[in-house]
C-alpha cells in the first residue's frame, strides 16, 4: 500500500513508514530518548529529501514530547523561568537555523552539511556515552557507588556572569546568559538536524548549569515541545518542507513502538542501556561518515530550482 506524500512529492510505502516509526519508537521507549536523531537519519537514508526529513521530524517530536511535558508539568518538575529563557534562545536559534537550511539548499550543500553535523555530534556524544557506560559497568562490577553529578558548593566561571536571575524550582541563582546561549545552540541544531536537542540539553543542564535532575527532564521536555513546534512552523513557512501525511504516519508507528520499547527497557540495567544506546548512536554516525567518504554511485544529481534562485 503506497501513499503519495503531498510535500515530499513522492509516493512512499505506508507499511515501511509505519515500521520505521515503530522501530524508532521502540528504541526511544527503550532508552528514554526523543528519537529525532534516529528518525531523521532513517528518513534521509530511505530517500526522503533531507530538508523534508528535518522539517517533518520537528512536528513528530512535538507530538511525542507533549504528553510527557504535560505530565512533568503536573508533577511540578518544570522550572518555568529557566524553560522560558532556554526557549527565548531556542527560538532565535531556530530562526537562524531554518534560514540556514534554506540558504544551504539553494547552494546544493544541505545534504552534505547535515551529514557533517550528524557525524560530529553523534561521534562525540556516542564516544562519550560509550566511555561513561563502560566505566559505569566496571564500577558496578567492582561494587562501587554511583557518583553524584551535583556538587552544590562548587563555583565555576558561570557564576561570574552578569544578568543574574533566580530560578526557583531549580534552586539556582545564575546569570541568564548561559541558559540563553544553550537554548540558542539547541535551537540551531533542532532546525538543522531535525532533532529535539535533548541529547545536548540534558547533559548541559546537569553538568554546566547544575540543575537538579528531576527538574532537568521536565524543563527540557517543556522546552522541546515549544521549540519543535516553533521550528515546524518556521520550516513550513520559510522552506515548505513539512509533510503532514508523513508526520502523521510516523506518529502512529512511533507511539506503538514506544509502548513495546518501554516494556523491554524495564528488563535492562541502566548502564547496559546506555552502552547499547552509545553503540547505536555511533553506528548512525558511522553510516553518515560512510556517506561522506564513499565514492558516490553517480557524481551528478538533479534537483528542482528552489526559492526561485
Amino acid at each position, binding site marked *: 500500500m503506497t501513499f503519495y506524500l503531498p510535500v515530499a512529492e513522492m509516493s512512499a510505502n505506508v507499511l515501511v513508514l509505519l515500521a520505521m516509526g515503530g522501530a524508532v519508537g521502540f528504541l526511544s521507549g527503550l532508552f528514554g530518548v526523543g528519537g529525532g536523531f534516529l528518525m531523521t537519519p532513517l528518513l534521509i537514508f530511505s530517500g526522503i529529501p533531507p530538508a523534508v526529513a528535518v522539517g517533518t521530524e520537528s512536528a513528530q517530536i512535538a507530538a511525542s514530547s507533549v504528553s510527557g511535558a504535560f505530565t512533568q508539568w503536573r508533577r511540578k518538575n518544570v522550572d518555568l523561568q529557566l524553560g522560558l529563557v532556554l526557549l527565548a534562545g531556542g527560538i532565535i536559534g531556530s530562526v537562524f537555523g531554518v534560514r540556514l537550511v534554506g540558504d544551504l539548499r539553494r547552494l546544493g550543500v544541505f545534504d552534505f552539511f547535515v551529514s557533517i553535523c550528524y557525524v560530529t555530534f553523534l561521534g562525540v556524544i556516542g564516544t562519550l556515552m560509550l566511555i561513561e557506560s563502560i566505566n559505569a559497568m566496571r564500577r558496578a562490577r567492582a561494587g562501587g557507588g554511583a557518583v553524584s553529578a551535583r556538587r552544590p558548593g562548587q563555583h565555576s566561571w558561570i557564576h561570574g556572569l552578569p544578568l543574574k536571575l533566580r530560578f526557583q524550582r531549580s534552586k539556582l541563582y545564575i546569570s541568564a546568559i548561559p541558559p540563553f546561549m544553550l537554548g540558542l545552540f539547541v535551537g540551531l541544531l533542532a532546525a538543522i538536524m531535525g532533532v529535539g536537542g535533548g541529547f545536548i540539553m540534558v547533559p548541559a543542564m546537569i553538568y554546566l548549569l547544575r540543575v537538579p535532575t528531576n527538574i532537568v527532564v521536565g524543563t527540557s521536555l517543556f522546552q522541546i515541545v515549544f521549540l519543535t513546534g516553533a521550528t*515546524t512552523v518556521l520550516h513550513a513557512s520559510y522552506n515548505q518542507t513539512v509533510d503532514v501525511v508523513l508526520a502523521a504516519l510516523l506518529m502512529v508507528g512511533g507511539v506503538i513502538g514506544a509502548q513495546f520499547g518501554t516494556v523491554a527497557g524495564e528488563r535492562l540495567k541502566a548502564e547496559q542501556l546506555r552502552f547499547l544506546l552509545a553503540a547505536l548512536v555511533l553506528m548512525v554516525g558511522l553510516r553518515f561518515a560512510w556517506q561522506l567518504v564513499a565514492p558516490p554511485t553517480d557524481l551528478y544529481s538533479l534537483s528542482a530550482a528552489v526559492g526561485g534562485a
Partner: protein
Amino acid sequence: MRWRRETCTTLGAIAAIAIGVLALSATDGLAQAQKRATTKQAPQRPPAVAKEAPHTQIEEIKREQQPGAKESVQADVSARNVAVTSSFNGTEIVIFGAVDNSQQPSAESGYYDVLIVVEGVPARLVVRRKNNVAGLWLNTSSATFDLVPSYYAIASTRPIDEITTEEFRASHGVGFQNLRFTPAFGQAQALSTEDLKDFRQAIVRLKLKQGLYVQDQYSVAFIGKSLFRATIELPANVTVGPFETRVYLFRDEKLLSQYTVRLNLEREGLERHLHAFAFGYPTLYGLMTVAIAIAAGLAASAMFRKAAH
C-alpha cells in the same frame, strides 16, 4: 507504570487521529475516482488541439473515394485528465489513432511509420556534480537549465533514425540529444561548453534512470489498415501539469501528417488540498501541523488522567 499506561492512551489517540486522516483521504480518493469515471464520458473535456484544419464530413467521404488522396493522422489518449491522489503510484496512458485515407494493405505491411512524443511541463532544473574535497564528497559545481521537460517519452513503430531524417529530429525536438533545454541566465558559476555538455548528458541519464525519460522503439503497433496504438508509462514520481502528445505519420522518411493532443495530470482529493495549503498558506499549514501534533499528545494526556481515576 504510570507513564506506560499513558503511552497506551497516547497510542490510542494518535492512532485514532491518523487513521481518521488516512480514512478521510481514502474516501476522498474514492470519490474522486468516481467523479473521474463519470466525467470521462461527459462532453466537457478539454478540446483536442488539432494542428490541421478540421475536415467536414463531406470532404472526408470525398477523400475516401479518391485512392490517391493525402493521408492524415488523428489521435487521442485514453485519459485526458489523470488524477494524482494519495494512492497515486504511476499510471499507463494508451495513445490511439487512425490514418485517414490509409493506403497500406495490412497492419503488418509497415507501409507507414508512426512516431509519438509525449512531453511534460518544461521546468527549470538544477544539476549538480560532486567532487572529492579532502576525502569528502560534496556538490561543488552546478548548472541551471531552463525548459527541461519534466517528462519525455518517444514511442515509434521502428527506431527513430530509420523513420526520420536528422533535420526533422533537430527541428521538431525529437530524441534526447535534440531536447531544447537551455542554460539559464545568471549561472552561479561560469561553465565551459565541455562542462555544459556533461551536465546535459547527466540530466538525460538521470531522467532515464528515474523512468521520466522513456524511449521505446517498437511500441507503436498498427491494428488493421489504419488503426494504431501505443502505451506510455507515467511513473509515480512524474511532475503534474499539462502534457503534450505529438503524433507524426511518416512514409519513407517523409512527414505526411501530424496531430497534437493534450492530457493533464492534476492533483486531486486530499492530496491536492494539502499541497495547495502547504504551498499557498505555508505559515497557516505549519500551525495546523503543530496543532494536530499537540492536540494528539494532549488528548492522550487527558485520556490518561481519566483512565487513572
